[in-house]
């Protein structure tokens, strides 16, 4: 009897909670660490990216209007989904990053735990970053953190899953919507995790993930007038130029710098806006 033939998976972009091929009809090959063929993935165009920004903008309001508790539940649900499909993620990470199974398991475990960590931040950010301000006058004055809006993410090129999670979960947990460009050569773990987000009660459009060529997409993301912040973690040598482009629309920019003191909250804080309310006190 012949062996059963496996059904191979087609990886697509995740935009507005749906799985789409690029409007351009293009795709490219993803290869494993040894150079073998793994999959064809959609090659997103600048139009796909703009569509994703529109979807993110439309979804962001509902995401922020949801209670912090609810956002935490949704993120935790995402971790549950990822855990239940952990083996798949382990295989994908192992293939693109060239790890042994044990190491791949470590990467995936840390990625899932990182989602859980950010799930817990949703209803604590206000208590750590906000607070009452004792102004010198008869006013009740308090500062509350909120999202900056739509955040673009250029995910790390090397760390296909852990790096991706770090970049998207931080802005998501404080109420931003995200348009992420996955690792160019290693996009499949991020695309799979994005699929799982679709079954995790995220409002469609809150997390959009594209695969494609950085050279084509990064500049568009950095210059897009309706993107409020950008994480340049995976942009490599292009980071300086992209940061300059982002200045045109006064984007909040997250970059990893060699002299950074390790602070896990810096990324989250980058995509938070503080609003201060003054209220009179008197009879």
């Amino acid at each position, binding site marked *: 009897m012949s062996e059963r033939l496996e059904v191979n998976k087609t990886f697509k972009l995740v935009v507005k909670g749906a799985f789409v091929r690029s409007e351009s009809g293009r795709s490219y090959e993803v290869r494993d660490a040894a150079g073998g063929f793994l999959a064809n993935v959609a090659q997103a165009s600048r139009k796909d990216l703009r569509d994703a920004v529109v979807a993110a903008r439309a979804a962001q309001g509902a995401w922020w209007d949801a209670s912090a508790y609810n956002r*935490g539940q949704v993120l935790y649900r995402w971790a549950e989904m990822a855990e239940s499909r952990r083996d798949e993620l382990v295989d994908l990470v192992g293939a693109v990053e060239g790890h042994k199974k044990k190491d791949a398991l470590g990467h995936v475990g840390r990625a899932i735990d990182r989602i859980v960590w950010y799930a817990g931040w949703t209803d604590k950010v206000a*208590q750590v970053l906000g607070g009452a301000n004792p102004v010198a006058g008869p006013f009740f004055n308090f500062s509350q953190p909120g999202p900056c809006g739509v955040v673009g993410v250029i995910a790390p090129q090397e760390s296909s899953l852990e790096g991706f999670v770090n970049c998207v979960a931080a802005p998501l947990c404080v109420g931003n919507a995200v348009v992420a460009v996955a690792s160019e050569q290693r996009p499949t773990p991020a695309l799979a995790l994005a699929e799982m987000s679709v079954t995790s009660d995220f409002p469609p459009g809150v997390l959009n993930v594209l695969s494609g060529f950085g050279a084509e997409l990064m500049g568009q993301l950095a210059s897009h007038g309706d993107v409020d912040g950008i994480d340049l973690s995976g942009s490599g040598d292009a980071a300086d130029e992209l940061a300059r482009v982002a200045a045109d629309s006064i984007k909040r920019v997250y970059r990893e710098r060699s002299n950074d003191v390790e602070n896990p909250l810096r990324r989250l804080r980058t995509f938070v806006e503080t609003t201060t309310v003054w209220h009179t006190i008197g009879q």
Partner: protein
Amino acid sequence: MIENSATSPLGALRYDVAPESASLAHLRKSYGLFIDGDFTPPESHEQFETINPATGETLATVALADTADVDRAVASARRAYERVWSSTPGTERAKYLYRIARLIQERSRELAVVETLDNGKPIRESRDVDVPLAAAHFFYYAGWADKLEHAGFGAHPRPLGVAGQIIPWNFPLLMAAWKLAPALAAGNTCVLKPAETTPLSALVLAEILQQAGLPEGVVNIITGDATTGAALVEHPGVDKIAFTGSTEVGRLIQERVAATSKRLTLELGGKGANIVFEDAPIDEVIEGIIDGIFFNQGHVCCAGSRLLVQESVADEVLRRLLRRVDQLRVGDPMDKNTDVGAINSLAQLERIRELTDWGEREGATRYTSACALPDKGLWFAPTVFSDVAQSHRIAREEIFGPVLSVLTFRTPEEAVTKANNSKYGLACGVWSEKGSRTLWVAQRLRAGVIWANTYNKFDPTSPFGGVRESGFGREGGRHGLEAYLDV
């Protein structure tokens, strides 16, 4: 078939009974002590019955823990602290707590039924308030377990060790969650003692802890009476006592631990003032007053049991309030339409009767809802006293029942003075459309929680607790971690 009825401007409204099924509780006949991860028979060989206050029927028998059992439980918690929990990373502690939260959500209907059967509170409340808030509390503190260094208590805040936790009968599951979640998140192990009359939901929670795979001994749940609680308080192996209950018992506990190194937090009684200004929206005010005092039969430490109404609107508020009181549906707690359920115990019912008798004796005007009460079980019809003076017992003492005392005031200063004229200081309500005045009043009230244009709102992110004889320490929010950290 019993029919509840209520009158309204539209005429008599009738409701068909909508009973929840008691069989969902899946109760065992008897329960042992949950020590070292298992239900074990008590050293005392004694069991006692827990009854359904709405029917008088026995629900189950539970073990009576004596000093030897307290010893076993504390030793188990100590072992678990030293061998497992204190070296379990925050990330892993967090995931245990998330699991517990999820399991509570999954078994929420069962837990709601158990709670209502054992406590007598309306199923609508246990289903919509107690159980979801308990799950939310575990969710919230799960998220702190791996973020303690961000909580504002220093870079490496340490747990205290073994926490002895004694909880009341008014919100049995929710109080267990309030105690366990922050303690575990901070890295402590626990010995929890549920109230004598409401042990069952904590025992279902013990099953949930087993299902969550929580390491043995991290949480021990021991049922018993006041002697059990006293043994726990005095046990030398306990590093921290957290108590929620009466001021009377809280005082005894504070005295007992005074000359020890034990940490202590107390959440005690209250006599909350619900202050209504003349500009407040009356429809919402009436609902807020009702919710403030008749929620959970008034068995609420932060109940709005003193209504302070501005004189100019006092007559109208009282008239509409009494009309609304008549519409409260009192009876079978398992009926989804019930507003006010059973009084939890005969002792509590007698306490309510004694104080309401004093209300009449001291000259207040009593109004009691004419609602029909079931033949068996423990009941007290919603009651409102007007013409109450500050010196009356019903204005000074916590009744812990569906009884409201109405007083009046003329100016904001007078409202504040009267509201603060209490040895307690747990919660207050302020009703006004004028935000600046609400904040002015709030600054001057001596209370741990102040609700503006709402009442009896609870959230795991929001610190709760009292000042003065309502106790000290906060539960909920970032502040709630402090009670379980060596900081």
